[in-house]
């Protein structure tokens, strides 16, 4: 059986780091804060690995099915006997997998930051924030009920707000952190309403019971939720769709993705942790957590999830081809890959071989965490070296930064889906799942995978090849970064290369039963060929400095420009908020507020003052009058209750 203390310690250790660094960091432990935080997260990571081993190979499987355990559950706030908010820990395949991902990537980022932020004035504060973030993310993963997940969901939002805005003297960082916070808060509003709807109809907040009550068609709760409709959709559908809205906001799905590229203003290791491996996949995790509800009770919402994921995947891939800031390329790439995970869930069914999409999604989440964190950390090393985010300031770095170059190449090959690296296996599974259930999405995914290979190698060639390093007057300062920055790169590269060989189908599936592993060379031919073509085109255009990219851009004209400007979605939002909301709605509301509401309030205030003046006379200070009023009160009450009311 799971050991509640071990599991509870996994989130609590980083929380202890947060408390220690946050309270004493500035004065007492300063530079030691980094080592402290790293040691604590190392403890968490070891516990998480142990828990995973224990779960998958010792007690998790009963009769060939992986069970869900709730080793700890405390009633936190009891509303009524039936409805209470609990704080619990849930242990099942996806939560265990996420524990490993979060603690491992967080550990890498902790180590890497020792070098990356060395000499930073607010070093201890940074580690305090990292600890808070890791704690919240682990709490989110382990949440056993939907309200608990919401609490940690918001905590994750707050800590990512703090981390994105870490360089608070930079106005763009402050603006980005605000944007991320507001956009995700907006989405979370939907999430909260969704929670209220689902819990109102199911009468519980607990995941297990909520799923059980809403998925069995005979239950009264499911019937009631399906029967009451609003705007043509049942309450259940609304609830599920709104919950997904929260997930889409956190996971930067189209059209709620606009905060993610801007969030790159934060320190690069933070991007690796939050915007590659952990927080942005929270939405995917949420959908997976409630997957039975989506799959069995609201197939329409699930189909919507599939389409949102597919659209996000291709839109982001197209935009990524045109960006010149290397972190923004990675940001759009992340959005595109999360789109993959989303539509993999969207095309999946519950249980059996039709549940392949579910497994594939979780598999891709796992491999993506490895190679994308690696890409971000590698990009961080490059930025650290050249002091710029722009491609034009880079080039020819392969000799200067051999370790970074080699690990970055592995990650690029992996994400491009080159055979025998981890990304290949997970992406093949996703494509296969899509192929069997929704052909339109399959073709979108196929095109996206070609684009992915292209933009990743565009990035790779522009950084490490293209022009000779001296061509842009680069300085010859420090080296690549010490061991602390190289070690995480190497470890993640091992993960990015080898994670594909984990037999995921046997461990994680929608209903807990093992899944047959599919592997078909013939099926893989098309995506692999497309990927290789993408790489070849990128090599042709960017291997050596030449005029081809500009010619290409000018010949594509409007399309290129639109993609470069991210399809003007930011501008659209600005138009809606500034022009429509602020001017049209805001002005009217302000007028209403000034004249009508203020008028009413003033009226109330004036009346209050008048009444208060009136009753002040009673407060005369003369004790004999008090006695009279006292007696009068008694007589009045007595008369009323004895004669009138009885």
């Amino acid at each position: 059986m799971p050991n509640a203390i071990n599991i509870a310690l996994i989130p609590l250790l980083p929380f202890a780091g947060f408390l220690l660094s946050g309270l004493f960091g500035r004065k007492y432990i300063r530079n030691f804060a980094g080592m402290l935080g790293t040691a604590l997260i190392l403890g968490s990571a070891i516990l998480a690995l142990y828990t995973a081993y224990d779960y998958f190979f010792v007690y998790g499987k009963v009769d060939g099915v992986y069970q869900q355990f709730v080793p700890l559950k405390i009633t936190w706030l009891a509303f009524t006997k039936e409805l209470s908010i609990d704080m619990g820990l849930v242990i099942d395949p996806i939560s265990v997998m996420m524990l490993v991902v979060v603690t491992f990537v967080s550990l890498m980022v902790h180590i890497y930051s020792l070098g990356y932020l060395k000499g930073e004035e607010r070093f201890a504060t940074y580690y305090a924030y990292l600890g808070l973030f890791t704690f919240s993310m682990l709490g989110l993963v382990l949440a056993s009920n939907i309200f608990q997940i919401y609490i940690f969901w918001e905590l994750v939002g707050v800590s990512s707000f703090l981390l994105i805005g870490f360089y608070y003297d930079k106005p763009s960082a402050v603006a980005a952190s605000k944007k991320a916070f507001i956009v995700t808060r907006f989405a979370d509003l939907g999430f909260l309403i969704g929670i209220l709807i689902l819990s109102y109809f199911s009468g519980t907040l607990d995941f297990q019971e909520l799923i059980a009550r809403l998925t069995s068609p005979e239950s009264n709760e499911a019937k009631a939720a399906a029967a009451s409709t609003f705007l043509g959709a049942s309450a259940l559908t609304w609830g599920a769709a709104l919950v997904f809205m929260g997930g889409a906001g956190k996971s930067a799905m189209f059209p709620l993705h606009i905060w993610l590229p801007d969030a790159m203003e934060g320190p690069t290791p933070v991007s690796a942790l939050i915007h590659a491996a952990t927080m942005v996949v929270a939405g995917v995790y949420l959908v997976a957590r409630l997957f039975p509800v989506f799959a069995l009770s609201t197939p329409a919402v699930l189909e919507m999830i599939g389409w949102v994921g597919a659209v996000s995947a291709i839109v982001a891939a197209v935009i990524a081809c045109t960006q010149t800031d290397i972190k923004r390329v990675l940001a759009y790439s992340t959005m595109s890959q999360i789109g993959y995970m989303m539509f993999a869930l969207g095309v999946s069914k519950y249980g059996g071989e039709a549940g392949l999409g579910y497994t594939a999604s979780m598999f891709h989440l796992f491999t993506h965490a490895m190679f994308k964190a690696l890409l971000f950390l590698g990009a961080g090393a490059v930025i650290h070296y050249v002091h710029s985010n722009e491609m034009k300031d880079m080039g020819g770095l392969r000799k200067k930064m051999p370790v970074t170059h080699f690990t970055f190449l592995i990650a690029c090959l992996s994400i491009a889906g080159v055979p025998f690296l981890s990304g290949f296996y997970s992406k093949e599974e996703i494509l296969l799942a899509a192929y069997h259930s929704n052909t339109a999405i399959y073709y979108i995914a196929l095109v996206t995978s070609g684009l992915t290979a292209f933009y990743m190698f565009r990035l790779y060639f522009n950084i490490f090849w293209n022009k000779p390093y001296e061509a842009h007057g680069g300085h010859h300062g420090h080296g690549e970064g010490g061991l602390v920055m190289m070690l995480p790169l190497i470890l993640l590269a091992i993960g990015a290369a080898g994670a594909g060989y984990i037999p995921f189908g046997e461990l994680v599936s929608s209903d807990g039963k093992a899944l047959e592993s599919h592997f078909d060379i013939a099926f893989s031919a098309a995506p692999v060929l497309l990927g290789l073509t993408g790489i070849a085109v990128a090599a042709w255009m960017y291997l050596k400095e030449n005029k081809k990219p500009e010619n290409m851009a000018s010949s594509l004209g409007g399309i290129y420009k639109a993609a470069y400007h991210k399809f003007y979605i930011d501008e659209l939002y600005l138009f809606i908020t500034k022009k429509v909301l602020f001017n049209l709605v805001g002005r009217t509301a302000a007028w209403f507020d000034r004249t009508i509401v203020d008028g009413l309030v003033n009226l109330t205030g004036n009346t209050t003052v008048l009444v208060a003046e009136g009753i002040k006379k009673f407060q005369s200070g003369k004790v004999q009058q008090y006695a009279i009023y006292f007696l009068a009160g008694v007589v009045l009450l007595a008369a009323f209750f004895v004669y009138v009311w009885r």
Partner: protein
Amino acid sequence: MNEFFSLMKSELVLTGIIFLLLFIKIGKGVKNETLLPLIQVLLLANFLFGFFLNKQGRLFGDMYYTTSLIVMQKNILNLGVYLISLVCADWLKKTQHLAEFFLLMLSALLGMFFMISSANLLIFYLSLELATIPVAAMANFDLEKKTSAEGAMKMILSSAFSSGILLFGISLIYGTTGSISLPQLGQLLDNSPLQILAFIFFFAAFAFKLSIVPFHLWTADVYEGSPIAVTSFLSVISKGAVAFIFMTMLFRVFQPMAHIWYQLVVVLAIATMVIGNLFALRQQNIKRFLAFSSIAQVGFILVAVSSNDPMGITSVVYFVLVYIFSNLAAFGVAAVITEKTGKENIDDYKGLYKTNPFLSWILALSLFSLAGIPPTAGFFGKLFLITAGSANANYWFIIVVALNLIVSLYYYLRVIRAVFMDKNDNPVEPVTISAPVRLGLLICGAGIVITGMLSWIYDYIYTLK
């Protein structure tokens, strides 16, 4: 004999302390500097002892009874008295008659203990007097101040008046039922007009003690004139004790008249909240402000009283605990500033944050809690009170309550704005806070934060029912 000790141990320990103080007083004069810490330690020991050797049972031919809920209530009151001895330490240290002050205060507390435990109208009446008369003497403790004497005078006269009414009510009840035993009375009442009249008299006496409108007029003068230690004792400890016995009386003894007192409680709850809020809105003096806001808080307690079910009792006990922390923190801060600088107006508090951040944070915490803003304990307190009150599905009532909550939010936040945001060229200078006061304020602050977060406190009180 053994049972006698364990059942009455709260009263016995308190009596022991009272006698000890008496001997100290009679013997050689002990300086305040040594006496006050001694008293504080004794009160702490008294509070801690309250958690041991608890039994349920009846004594003296059913005149006295105790249950674990009653013990809990007594513990809460003990805690409050201990906190008062801490947060008002500066003023206490200066009084000439420290031993007498605590003699009076503890006697009043003893009276309250007997009152809560009384199962007989006679004991109830006697203990009510014991809980009142010493407080009137305490109100007079600022000997050189005229207002203090005036407040004491008004209090003794008004409470004599209310006692007269109460005795009238008791004799009518005895006359119609032939019994003064509370458990029996519950079965004997038959809603005859004479009994209803008696009940109204009864109710008026309680309303007087709780400062329910329209029986609240004495409150403002007494609160303002008395030293802060007395004001906080009156507004927190007295109110809490009377609220406890009030609920027991209504729920147990006057249960046959529930349809009458429900109406009464609802109407008076609204009146009390509205009038209390209206007055608090206009106050400039921080003590008067807290006094009137405490009238409004009693209105909120009445909301839970109207529920007539166990959750009402639980939520009131919980609220009183929270209220002790919140109100004593606010009074404590006001006491420190008044004692050190003589400033009592809310306008003087402008810019306090610049000079006294610690006091400002404690004050903000307590006012947030009094206003019922999450995540302070006050929020949960109000939440449970209103949840209990909505048991009767009287939604208009709940809407009015909610509106009053908003009004109270306004005036509590007004003080917070003055402290944190308003500019002031002449703010309160930085004051040094002595160790006991700091300890008291920290306990209150921690209580405000922790009591809300730990749901088992509420659950524990609920299990006592």
